[in-house]
């Protein structure tokens, strides 16, 4: 038995007539940090939503911790240990910062409680000053911190971040990368999508590149950096 936390086999997905995922296979091991890359519209978000059961897979398999994830609805997958920081952050605008966090807080797999309300606030001191603010009163960076903090409070084994630093000022983005480093050190597997190739490849153990719904590269980042023409074709960097 491998130590794969999640295994995806030959996954296909459609939006109506358009075939968006065309046979994606991927393994996510425990404690691994994976960079999911690709140009706009290549299917990264769709893949993530399939993993979470938010978009139905047309065929293929998703196994999470030896269970058939395709049979589980989203809230059960979340309870099984997958946390999600979506594109656009997904903050509940009509809930206060505190309520956003409270709603998420629970123990993880086998009762693990690594991330508590206090630890999250210590990691994101800016949130501490804004506990009673409504979700819509936060800056983009604060929203992303809240979204990550909220995800951590579910004490997940796999954290999926879509567009981790999109639209954030460089200094704020750096704060987010630092937090991801802490998360990585705490042993949580992460799957991260971001446009910043340099930071993302530095932080990850493995890079996965998607082109038109297929995975064209799946290896350590130095292998990718060694192929400048492929980088240019696939990612435009």
């Amino acid at each position, binding site marked *: 038995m491998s130590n794969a936390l999640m295994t995806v086999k030959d996954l296909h997905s459609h939006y109506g007539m358009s075939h968006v995922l065309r046979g994606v296979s991927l393994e996510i091991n425990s404690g691994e940090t994976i960079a999911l890359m690709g140009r706009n519209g290549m299917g990264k978000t769709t893949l993530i939503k399939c993993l*979470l059961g*938010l978009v139905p897979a047309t065929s293929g398999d998703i196994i999470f911790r030896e269970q058939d994830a395709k049979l589980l*609805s*989203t*809230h*059960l997958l*979340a*309870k099984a240990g997958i*946390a*999600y920081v*979506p594109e656009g952050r*997904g*903050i*509940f*605008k*009509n*809930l206060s910062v505190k*309520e956003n966090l*409270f*709603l*998420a807080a*629970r123990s993880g797999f086998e009762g693990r409680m690594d991330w508590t309300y206090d630890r999250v606030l210590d990691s994101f001191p800016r949130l501490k000053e804004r506990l009673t603010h409504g*979700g819509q009163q936060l800056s983009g960076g604060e929203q992303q911190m809240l979204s990550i903090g*909220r995800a951590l409070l*579910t004490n997940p084994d796999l954290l999926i971040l879509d567009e981790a630093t999109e639209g954030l000022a460089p200094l704020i983005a750096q704060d987010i990368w630092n937090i991801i480093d802490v998360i990585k050190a705490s042993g949580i597997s992460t799957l991260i999508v971001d446009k910043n190739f340099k930071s993302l490849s530095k932080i990850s153990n493995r890079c996965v590149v998607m082109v038109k719904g297929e995975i064209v590269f799946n290896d350590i980042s130095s292998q990718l950096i060694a192929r400048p023409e492929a980088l240019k074709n696939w990612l435009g960097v």
Partner: protein
Amino acid sequence: MDAVTIFIQAMNGIQYGLLLFLVASGLTLIFGIMGVINIAHGSFYMIGAYLAWSFMGWIGNFWLGLFVGVVVAFVLGLVLEFLFIRFLYDKDHLQQVLVTYGLILIFSELRSVIWGDDVHSVAIPALLDGSIQLTENLAYPVYRIWLSSVCIVIAILMFLGIQHTRLGMMIRAGESDREMTKALGINIGLVYRFIFALGVSLAAFSGMISAPISSVFPGMGGQVLIVSFVVVVIGGLGSIKGAMVAALLVGLIDTFGKVTTLHIFGVNIFPEMAGMSIFALMALILMFRPQGIFGREH
């Protein structure tokens, strides 16, 4: 009108408004949270009134009847959500209206089979069957005061529940971002089922407590549905606060409209106009605020 008459009519208007709120709040919650237009909502009010009438006949105890009726309505709500409503969440409004119209027909037919098509009246429970003397020859019924108080208590519980309980947080979260709510491990389907059943119970409860002060008749569901929709539209789709304000407005305007007299060429035109006044109010408000008083702009 003298001061006492105005006072009494104001009390009646508020009482009618509060009752409307109970019906309309379920309607607006179900629309605001689940996005479902449920035109069968008035049927639950009608069912409630008929239940009250039957229970008075069978058990002879209004209070026990009220309790059993609410439980029956809640279970009915759970079952209906499971069988029909949950399939409507991602459908368009036309399909929702068609399915819930089907429910109206079913309930109307069932009512006819079970209870017949007669008009009935329900006696005021003995405990509240008195009145408070206001002046020498004017009195106000205790039952109506009780009814208003119950509505106020329920409204307060609703506001507190939505603002301060975990379930309330889930409801608000689901309203803001359904996918994200699920992704945090919340079984939103179960939350929806509960809310729907709660809405059904509220409508049925309103029908039951209103039975002793109005008659129980086949068309009562349709009547209350239309007025409740006016309330929901005026208040702003999905807004509980809006439903409260609009319900009171509609209650007062409707009540005063019915007792106001305005003679034109010796003919009193007002009672006939009263029925129209709430629609005029709706048109007026929509002209200036198309999203309703507390509605959010889209």
